[in-house]
């Protein structure tokens, strides 16, 4: 266990960091959305996403779809995944992209933020998840001395590390709490990296990716599951209300001896084997071996996936596993189900946002938003604030 490595930032430092209501030319006061308190509850929805193209721009973007505005909380590091506190929904955490070592908690109502850091000799892998009561935060990290994948457990009151679990694999990436609240699902991507060699993958020949289920209280491995292609790295997933995990993969093509086609999406239903999601050859080829984000719509039994290298969002039915549709969108990666469940929200690196109706899987073009000063990064999350 390490000492508390968190730092607490108050409004003043946040202002310096760029936490502003753009356009007004003034810094945000405490409670940046206090001005909207009189608005309808659905106006409290925010889409939270890492954003920025350069270190100077890196931050956590918060988009108001109703007000059609967005702010950026400067982070000074390239963020990746976002997770929301389950009992204090105004608190969100953004975890740094591999091989970063910083996480950032932001209180969307008070304007306070605080950082926390990886333990010594560890780096983050981009994602985190809260316990059901919100008292613990689990982040996917790596011990870069041993190469072992770790789940670092922190007390969210002070972000002190209180436990360290094995991830039961190398390169853990997305991590989420299962609907039973007692199990963590972890995508062990299988890719070994070291901060000294940056993002270079060091174990292409021996990589082994798993979808693992871990007891949230003990850290014991419950089960692990693999896909047939050993050069396919399970990276991201989302979980349906019934515990079905829909996951996306990235294929390490340069480590393969041929160019055989590999499906990039799959599902794991409780008690069953992994099933891969099929698509026409031309679409699978177009994905360029890269799925970037996954979001599940349990109500409509849909799993959505995005591929920024393929400029495609794709949608499969979770019952019969049939492809339901696709949407072309340049550099699309951010993906979330909006608060009402009416639309999948897609974001891209040009600051554009599009909404795909979950009933028709067609885009509602009237709902387009464009923030040319922003570059939405890999992941997005819809949060509904309460006043």
């Amino acid at each position, binding site marked *: 266990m390490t000492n508390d490595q968190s730092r607490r930032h108050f409004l003043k430092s946040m202002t310096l960091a760029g936490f502003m*209501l*753009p*356009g*007004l*030319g003034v810094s945000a006061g405490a409670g940046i959305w206090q001005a*909207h308190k*009189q*608005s309808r509850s659905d106006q409290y929805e925010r889409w939270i996403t890492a954003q920025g*193209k350069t270190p100077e721009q890196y931050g956590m973007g918060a988009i108001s779809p*109703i*007000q*059609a*505005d967005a702010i950026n909380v400067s982070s000074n590091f390239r963020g*990746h995944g976002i997770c929301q506190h389950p009992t204090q929904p105004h608190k969100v955490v953004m975890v740094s*992209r*591999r091989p970063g070592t910083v996480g950032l908690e932001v209180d969307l109502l008070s304007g306070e933020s605080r950082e926390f850091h990886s333990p010594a000799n560890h780096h983050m892998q*981009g994602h985190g998840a809260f316990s059901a009561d919100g008292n613990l935060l689990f982040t996917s990290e790596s011990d870069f001395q041993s190469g072992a994948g770790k789940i670092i457990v922190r007390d969210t009151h002070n972000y002190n590390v209180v436990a360290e679990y094995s991830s039961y694999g190398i*390169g853990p*990436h997305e991590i989420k709490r299962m609907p039973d609240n007692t199990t963590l699902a972890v995508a062990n*991507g299988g*890719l070994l*990296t070291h901060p000294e060699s940056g*993002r270079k*993958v060091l174990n292409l020949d021996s990589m082994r990716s798993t979808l693992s289920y871990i007891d949230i209280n003990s850290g014991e491995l419950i089960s692990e599951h693999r896909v047939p292609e050993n050069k396919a*790295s399970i*990276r991201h997933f989302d979980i349906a209300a019934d515990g079905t995990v829909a996951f996306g993969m*990235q294929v*390490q093509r340069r480590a393969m001896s041929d*160019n055989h*086609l590999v499906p990039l999406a799959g599902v794991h239903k409780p008690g069953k084997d992994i099933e891969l999601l099929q698509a*026409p*050859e*031309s*679409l699978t*080829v*177009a994905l360029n071996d*890269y799925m*970037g984000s996954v979001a599940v719509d349990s109500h409509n039994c849909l799993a959505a996936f995005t591929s*920024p*290298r393929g*400029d*495609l969002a794709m949608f499969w039915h979770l019952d019969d596993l049939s492809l339901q549709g*696709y949407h*072309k*969108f*340049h*550099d699309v*990666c951010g993906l979330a189900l909006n608060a009402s469940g009416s639309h999948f929200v897609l974001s*891209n*690196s*040009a600051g554009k946002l599009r909404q795909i109706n979950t009933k028709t899987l*067609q*885009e509602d*073009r009237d709902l387009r938003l464009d*923030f*040319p*000063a922003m*570059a939405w*990064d*890999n992941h997005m999350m819809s949060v509904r604030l309460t006043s």
Partner: protein
Amino acid sequence: MLKHTSKLIATVTTATLLSSCGSESSTRTIEYSGLNQALSQVITLVVEPAATNFLNQARQLDSLSDAFCSTTTEPNLLAVQNQWKATAKSWYELLPYNFGPMINDEVLPEYIFIDSLRLRGTNYTQTVRNDIDSMLAASSALTDTTFRNKNFQFVGLLATELAVFERASDHNKEIGNILSDFTSQSRKCQILQGYTGQLVARAENISNSWSNNYKNTGSSYRKLLLSGGLSQIAGEDSSSTSTKLITSTNEYMDYVHKRTIVNDVAVVSGYTWTLMLAGLESFERMVEGTPATTESFADIMQASTATDLATIRANIVSAKQAIEAENDTDFDAAVKAIDGNIKRELTDGLNINTGLNFSDGD
């Protein structure tokens, strides 16, 4: 009121940021103006004419195939073979611009029915040979519908090449033996005409989309692309012209060296290296312009990043030398270098933003 205020916030934000960009460098605005002009000229002087030329060549191939099948003589067969080469060459001049009308449909993109190899480097030579053998052995009528309904692996330039450059039974390439294939069995001509007819149909779809009517919008793809009108079409990739050109040429170079296509393209006709040169020179025209060009990418780079331009030019020369020497190792290396040049030097030199780096492991 609240909504109005919020919209104002967003507007002011945008305006403020645009202002700050412009104030950084007054020349930047001029460069962007030049880039828009250069982009427009690449589309109108390089890409769209390539689509038109491919259609014209395909039509000529179809016409010469009809003439040959009316009079099955060696000169007429040689004319078909030569026209196949001209058609394939025109295709490789278009292939680096694999977007918009070349795709048309994500599930069944137009280009794969012309060039089955391009999808992912799978060589369907044996598949086509088996299909030709089956069609020759069968007795059912071979109609336009027969060929229109064939999957992409069974039609296109490869199928046409195999029909006119080798004898079906033993793949012998001697002209007299190929001619006897046609004189001894009328179905061989029906196969050839079926193939060329489908090539024309696909070429017409592409050229018509580029120049007249894209996806029944009543507007040409050229006009929609250059005016920003693509965003109004459902399901359409509305990324910028610059992004499309950079991405597609980058993907083409990536395809050429990663799939080592010199081992698979036009092997039976012996026309591989000419096609490699055609693709390379088409890319070079995108960079340098044509005689009618007044503002080229090279002009823009020469004024700002001349060293980067020199690097690109040097690698194009290297690739041409490798083609001349028919050295596949050097060619793949040079194309790989150009692939990198597109991502770095060309993109930076033109100040084009193609997006974030969504790299492995994210």
